[in-house]
């Protein structure tokens, strides 16, 4: 409300909204893909990698959508949902489920945690409208560090998960071999030469993405969009703003819980303790790269963003290493993804409070 905008500013802003950074990143990825065969990297393997990583991360990025829609901003509190997922995963193994059943049980057990934590989180965010993102970040951090203590203290006993010597306290990484490793990816996997496509995971993602898309077109879904775009108007139209926001936060949290389980089944390991700490940032920058802004996000943004982000993450190390024998991937990834978030934060037309 404080911004005074001239006409020229507006033209410049709309040009910038079109997304120069996005264009650069897309161009960069295309360049990397073109370069790859010339520097001796195997293109099919690379593409297969990108598809696989997309399938692991897609749902975590999808978890951003409901909260952005209801005007709660980017969900920097993603670790909270991840914690619910991790509780589901470890409890499912603790109760002795194996194979694909353990995946299903992990989802079932994670759900009540996600609902409870999500409701609390939503209640908190309703009390601090306008400052959601910063507080979300720290809610995520606090919950991760609280759970660090819990992983050590909770009475887990499964020998596959606890430290061998002490007989208590969960390990930092837990192998999913014999549990739900590749539980989804293994369903109808297609192998063509060097390309392997995890059909099951992609279908699962498509299912959830479609679910969200369909939801956003229901009455409640449109109400959510209304709350996000104009809370005053929404309230005037008789929508219970707080309730809708709460719902969106719970959905985001639940999706994050499912997202981490899907990630684990692809990755093959559960990572505990500080691992979820910074997991929100790649997801946030992925959806922003896909064209979302702080208060607008679509399913297409999720798909494009995840492909671009994961594409760059996969391609840079290979191409760089082959080209100049210098692995700058880490640095480039940080600069690109953080730059993207920074860009998005400076580019919101109106403050949400």
């Amino acid at each position, binding site marked *: 409300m404080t911004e005074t905008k001239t006409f020229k500013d507006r033209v410049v802003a709309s040009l910038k909204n079109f997304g120069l950074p996005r264009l650069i990143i897309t161009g960069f990825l295309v360049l990397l893909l073109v370069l790859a065969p010339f520097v001796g990297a195997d293109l099919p393997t690379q593409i297969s990698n990108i598809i696989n990583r997309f399938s692991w991360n897609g749902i975590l990025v999808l978890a951003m959508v409901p909260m952005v829609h209801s005007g709660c901003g980017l969900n920097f509190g993603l670790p909270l949902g991840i914690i619910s997922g991790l509780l589901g995963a470890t409890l499912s193994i603790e109760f002795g489920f194996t194979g694909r059943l353990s995946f299903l049980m992990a989802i079932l057990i994670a759900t009540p945690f996600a609902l409870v934590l999500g409701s609390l989180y939503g209640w908190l965010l309703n009390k601090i409208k306008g400052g959601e993102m910063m507080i979300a970040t720290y809610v995520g951090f606090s919950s991760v560090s609280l759970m660090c203590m819990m992983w050590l203290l909770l009475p887990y006993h499964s020998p596959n998960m606890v430290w061998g010597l002490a007989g208590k306290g969960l390990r930092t990484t837990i192998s999913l071999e014999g549990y739900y490793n590749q539980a989804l990816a293994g369903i109808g996997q297609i192998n063509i030469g060097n390309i392997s496509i995890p059909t099951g995971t992609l279908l699962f993602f498509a299912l959830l993405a479609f679910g969200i898309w369909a939801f956003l077109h229901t009455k409640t879904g449109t109400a959510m969009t209304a709350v996000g775009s104009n809370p005053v108007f929404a309230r005037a139209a008789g929508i219970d703003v707080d309730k809708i926001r709460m719902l969106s936060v719970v959905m985001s949290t639940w999706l994050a819980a499912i997202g981490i389980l899907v990630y684990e089944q692809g990755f093959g390991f559960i990572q505990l303790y*500080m691992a979820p*700490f*910074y997991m929100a*940032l*790649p997801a946030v920058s992925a959806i922003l790269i896909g064209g979302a802004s702080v208060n607008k996000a679509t399913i297409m943004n999720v798909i494009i963003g995840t492909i671009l982000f994961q594409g760059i993450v996969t391609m840079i190390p290979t191409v760089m290493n082959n080209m100049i024998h210098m692995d700058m991937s*880490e640095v480039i990834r*940080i600069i690109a993804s*953080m730059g993207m978030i920074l860009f998005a934060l400076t580019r919101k037309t109106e403050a949400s409070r």
Partner: protein
Amino acid sequence: MRSKRQILFRAGALLIVLLIAAVMFIIGRGHTVYFDNKTAEYNGQEYEAFHKVVVTVDGEQVSKLGKRDRGMADTMGQNFVMTLEITDEKGAQPHSHKVSMSLPYSMDGIIINIPELMAGLPADAYLSEFVVAPVEETESETAEGEDELGDEFGIGGDV
């Protein structure tokens, strides 16, 4: 008028800061000085090592050297003053010398051969550069000195 004065003032401040930086470069240059009490040869003449040398720098005794011993001290600045307490033979009365010299700026490590120094030879005789022998490198030297960091949270945050 005022802006002109302001510019002058700023330029002056900048100059002072640069001047301080230059002074720091000179007075802050650190060297490691090594003292050798070794028999050395210069222009065909041999200079015998002393029985015992006690080196004192800044009122602090840094080393006691027997024959063929090497001691070291870290110093700051180009002027180096040390007091040598020399015992020529076993049982002889030690005699004390105050030696001051200026150290070459470019050398990090400097070796001073005390017998040659005391014989009053020119600097290129008693002074030589200490070259660090290339150490076998191990790529993984991450944990080194980690426990010194009392304030670290021990979180591997790397995003």
